[in-house]
């Protein structure tokens, strides 16, 4: 009998979405448990005592944390529809690009959306440059993984509905058809694929969530002045 799989996540998190996409791609059944991050469950704290964060994958009672670590575990445990190539150099390149996404693309884009003035302009420029670098890597491929979705595509899932929503909330433009046509086309292809579309949060609810977050931040700032 297959051991049960659970995912502890938060519907607003692109990191949690990565894990669900990978499981769906491989046809792995799982139970999803929504966490309230302002009131973390005892189970989450037990499964991820070091970081106390989501996502956490629990397989047969054994927990794994850190989304990219979870993705590699999923790849090694369920061999159907591989998300990493066989060739060691191509695997190293896939890992390189996922690290680039996690260490540069996402954090800088996130900061650019929530900052102001000179700092925001600087971060916006850096974000656009990072997206151009990603776009050059994608080149003429359908997906970063080639003909099918791979590790890098899954890592880049924040470029789907999150980026669209966050730009709207922040009132700035970073990523669109005009500036990054190839990457934009990829995002649409990615979002409409079967395994992905069921995992993406509803756009209008995500918009409300981040609008509320922004209002909360502005209120805090106003309160501090």
């Amino acid at each position, binding site marked *: 009998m297959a051991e049960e799989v659970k995912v502890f996540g938060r519907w607003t998190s692109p990191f949690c979405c990565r894990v669900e996409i990978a499981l769906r791609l491989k046809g792995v059944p799982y139970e999803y448990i929504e966490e309230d991050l302002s009131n973390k469950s005892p189970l989450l704290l037990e499964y991820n005592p070091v970081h106390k964060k989501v996502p956490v994958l629990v397989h047969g009672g054994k927990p*794994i944390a850190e989304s*990219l670590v979870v993705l*590699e575990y999923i790849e090694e445990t369920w061999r159907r529809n591989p998300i990493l190539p066989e060739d060691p150099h191509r695997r190293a*390149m896939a890992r390189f690009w996922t690290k680039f996404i996690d260490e540069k693309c996402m954090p800088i884009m996130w900061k650019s959306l929530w900052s102001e003035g000179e700092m925001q302009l600087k971060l916006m420029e850096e974000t656009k440059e990072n997206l151009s670098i990603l776009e050059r890597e994608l080149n003429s491929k359908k997906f970063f993984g080639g003909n099918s979705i791979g590790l890098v595509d899954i890592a880049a899932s924040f470029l789907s509905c999150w980026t669209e929503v966050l730009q709207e909330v922040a009132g700035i433009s970073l990523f669109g058809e005009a500036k990054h046509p190839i990457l934009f086309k990829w995002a649409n292809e990615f979002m409409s694929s079967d395994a992905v579309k069921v995992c993406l949060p509803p756009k209008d609810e995500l918009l409300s969530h981040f609008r509320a977050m922004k209002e909360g931040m502005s209120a805090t700032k106003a309160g501090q002045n």
Partner: protein
Amino acid sequence: MAGDQELKLLGSWASPFVIRARIALNLKGVGYEFLEEGLGTKSELLLKSNPVYKQIPVLIHNGKPICESMIIVQYIDEVWAAAGPSILPSDPYDRAIARFWAVYIDDKWFPLLWKIIIAKADDEETAEAAEQVIAGLQLLEEAFEKCSKGKDFFGGKSVGCIDIALGCYFGWVKAAEKMAGVKLLDKEKIPLLMGWAERFCSADAVKELMPEVDKLIEHGKMVRARLNAAATN
């Protein structure tokens, strides 16, 4: 196979990240050409091989570059799988644990150590960073107990992924202690790790690579001075 191959490593004697790649190559008994990058300079080859980050280490295997130290270590483990002991465990869950701690060490623990290394004299934040470094080491002490299962290394009988990820920083931990006048390595608090560190530093694949602490201190002071000068400009 591994026979007639061109293998170069771009690096620097002081970089813990470069040491990781060298340990992995030593574990597999693989020969390579080491190209030393000077402090503050970046060669044409480096800029061409790592245009995104322009950083060492870069492994160039038959003309193809591989960047980022732990990615290089995994690459070496995969390409020369049969040539030496496995660096990553064979079981997927154990591999996930190894990767988890490697990420923790680099993303959470090392930045605190780095803060101590580049801190100006009497920086208030140094004491706090030192406490956090020690707390991190205590977490790693528990991880060592679980992963080693009574054997010499995190990887068991031989040096593995977490050993490489953490051990490469050992010289810098000692340098940070002297540079900032803080005690980070306490036998009372981390007895297992202290024993492990000694075994790690004297392992065949490692012993010739660990830099002398005094040289690291000198290097650290230069890096600190350059960073502080850049910050004021």
